[in-house]
């Protein structure tokens, strides 16, 4: 009996060793967002640290105190050096596993993105889940301009862009794990959202408040920044290239002066590629589901008219967007990736040697677009069928 007891006690003592590395939350600097800039051979890292109490702020009813964001700045010729240069003045241990967002400066995207990600990911603390952004603005202000109503900084578009995206799918948020496709895959194209500050929308006590918003996307392919696309230049990509589309409005002019606004709620694209001689011809077949949100004019546009106008406009957007992107040498619909996976031998031949990419782009042709619009409902008012 005694021996058994001793054995149980010994086993429990073994469990204690699990507390060896235990850290108390208040004695750790939790880095919640990172900003990385690269200028003239030197990395600058901005680490946003939140007061532990500020993270769970939304629980209390009124937040009178302003949310404080602390930003550490580190510099160095390598990422590790820059990270380390933050430590001496950090007072306590710094933890990087809770980074929820990473903002890359445009100059970094243009030069050293792949090298930077290699060192970040090797550090073992950073995960693949943070949201990633590019910006051409001052990074510290972006990391600071993040919370409304003095709420927890975690309730911001920077830290969780999904909520805004669900209400208005302007630019699809991207996580680090998927950015890696644009770095490592030989033919993939990835859109990394561009983030910026705006003081045009919110104000408090008549003073404008700067908050972040997404305003376009940088195109990353083969580790390189292929260029910037604003909202307008994503009009076709939204229906074809976005993985998840939640809601995006479409304003339609209908003959006889009527107009209607519909919300596209879902878009299922099917892109087919075929090779014809030296040409890469592709067709886009797309099924969208929409809801009518606004109708105006006399006579009021009918469901069939709206459907027709919507299909025509989406088709136009897809064609225009393709040509605009092609002119910038951007493979907006990821055709090269399909080519790479489906017709690997031909892809190899086409992209071989210098000027292979140019050759690929010049032989890319949008053959046909087929749009099928389904109007699910007309919201809380009725709509005439035809």
């Amino acid at each position, binding site marked *: 009996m005694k021996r058994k007891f001793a054995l149980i006690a010994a086993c429990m003592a073994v469990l204690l060793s699990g507390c060896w*590395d235990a850290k108390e939350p208040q004695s750790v600097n939790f880095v919640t967002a990172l900003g990385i800039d690269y200028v003239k051979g030197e990395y600058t890292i901005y680490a946003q640290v939140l007061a532990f109490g500020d993270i769970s702020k939304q629980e209390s009813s009124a937040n009178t105190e302003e949310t404080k964001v602390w930003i550490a700045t580190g510099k160095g010729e390598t990422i590790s050096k820059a990270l380390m240069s933050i430590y001496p003045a950090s007072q306590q241990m710094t933890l990087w596993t809770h980074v929820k967002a990473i903002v890359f400066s445009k100059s970094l995207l243009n030069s050293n993105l792949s090298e930077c990600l290699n060192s970040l990911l090797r550090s*073992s603390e950073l995960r*693949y889940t943070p949201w990633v952004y590019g910006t051409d603005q001052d990074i510290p202000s972006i990391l600071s301009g993040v919370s409304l109503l003095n709420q927890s900084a975690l309730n911001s578009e920077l830290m969780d862009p999904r909520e805004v995206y669900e209400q208005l799918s302007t630019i699809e948020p991207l996580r680090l794990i998927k950015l890696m496709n644009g770095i490592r895959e030989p033919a993939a194209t990835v859109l990394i959202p561009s983030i910026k500050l705006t003081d045009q929308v919110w104000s408090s006590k008549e003073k404008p408040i700067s908050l972040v918003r997404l305003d376009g996307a940088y195109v990353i392919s083969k580790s390189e920044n292929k260029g910037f696309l604003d909202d307008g230049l994503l009009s076709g990509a939204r229906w074809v290239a976005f993985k998840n589309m939640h809601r995006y409005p479409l304003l339609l002019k209908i003959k006889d002066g009527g107009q209607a606004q519909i919300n596209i709620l879902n878009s299922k694209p099917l892109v087919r590629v075929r090779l014809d001689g030296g040409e890469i011809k592709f067709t886009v077949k797309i099924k969208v589901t929409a809801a009518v949100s606004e109708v105006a004019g006399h006579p009021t546009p009918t469901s069939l008219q709206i459907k027709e106008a919507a299909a025509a406009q989406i088709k136009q957007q897809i064609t225009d967007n393709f040509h605009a992107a092609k002119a910038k040498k951007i493979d907006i619909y990821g055709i090269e990736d399909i080519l790479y996976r489906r017709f*690997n031998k031909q892809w190899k031949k086409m992209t071989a040697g210098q000027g292979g990419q140019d050759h690929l782009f010049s032989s890319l042709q949008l053959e046909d677009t087929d749009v099928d619009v389904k109007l699910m409902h007309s919201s809380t008012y009725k709509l005439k069928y035809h």
Partner: protein
Amino acid sequence: MRMNPPKPTALQAIMTIMLTVGITNHVFIIPALLQTAKRDAWFSVILSIVPFALLTLLITYISARTRGKSLPDWLENSYGKMVSVPFKFISAAYFLGTAWFALFDTIMWTKVTFLPYTPMIITAAVLMLICLIAAQLGVNSMAYASGVLLPFVVLLGFYVATVNVQYKDYHQLLPLLEHGWAPPLKGIIYACTGLFEIFFLLFLQPYLKAPLTNKHFVIVGFILVGLTLGPLTGSIAEFNPHEASLQRYPAYEQWRIAGFGKYVSQTDFFSIYQWLAGVTVRIAVALFIATDIWNISKKRQRSALLLLYAIGLTLLCLTTFTDIQFQHLMIRFMFPFNTGLILIVTLLLALAVFISAHKKGESRT
């Protein structure tokens, strides 16, 4: 005298094997496979079903003819000590190596990922102590422990596979054979390292209530292939083959991205349970086989040998090599060597069984 507890059933044996061998298929060989075959790694596994099926066939043949007897005993009866003693040495060395590498990989993984400040001697000693107790208590304790541990391991496995669906893009499994047949063919060696461990069943069999039937071997075979394909295709689809091939712990990386909703963003601690469950049973089983093969009847001597093994392995694990050397050693030498060794030993055993059966047949007529 205490009454002898009932011997483990076939189901318990399968569960023990799923933990013991599963960790190799599910974790240890994944980086080797991704490194050699990249995107075609999953195809390597499909291809390796052919040699694996042949090996399993041989093993069922051996199993049927030895009727659940322990292999060294059977060899001694049929061919004498000249054959059985070398077999014992090879088996003991093989299983000790198995325990050593499992311990090293685990301890290094804890150091690199979640316990960077805990001295390795502590983690190694604690883990070894648990394995030592399990091995000392015998095959029943391991079989029962597996019955308790495995269901949660499987459940967690399905959890991580499900929550990560949001990151999976199975288009990334294509194109097939981008760089010709060489990469997937090379990968077969590594896929087989894990799959061929089905061989362990021959060593567990003598302790079971009844010998295993062909059906059991087929079931284990399917499970092992599934266990390899799951994290492998997952890794390629979630990351991409290039990123995955750079990772030291691809299976664990899948845990690091697993989370759901706004408030549960990290659940990787569950992977510690999974990994440790597998590795504890693996090391315990290996220690047990490497001890029991010598048929030591005195309890004291048996325990002393076990203790010697445990201390020796812990010291080896802490002193011999760095993780960089370890990876190089495993991928360049140990994995291919293990594949070859199991293959050759199985072939020789099958031959021995065949000759012995033939002889008996002759003497009868």
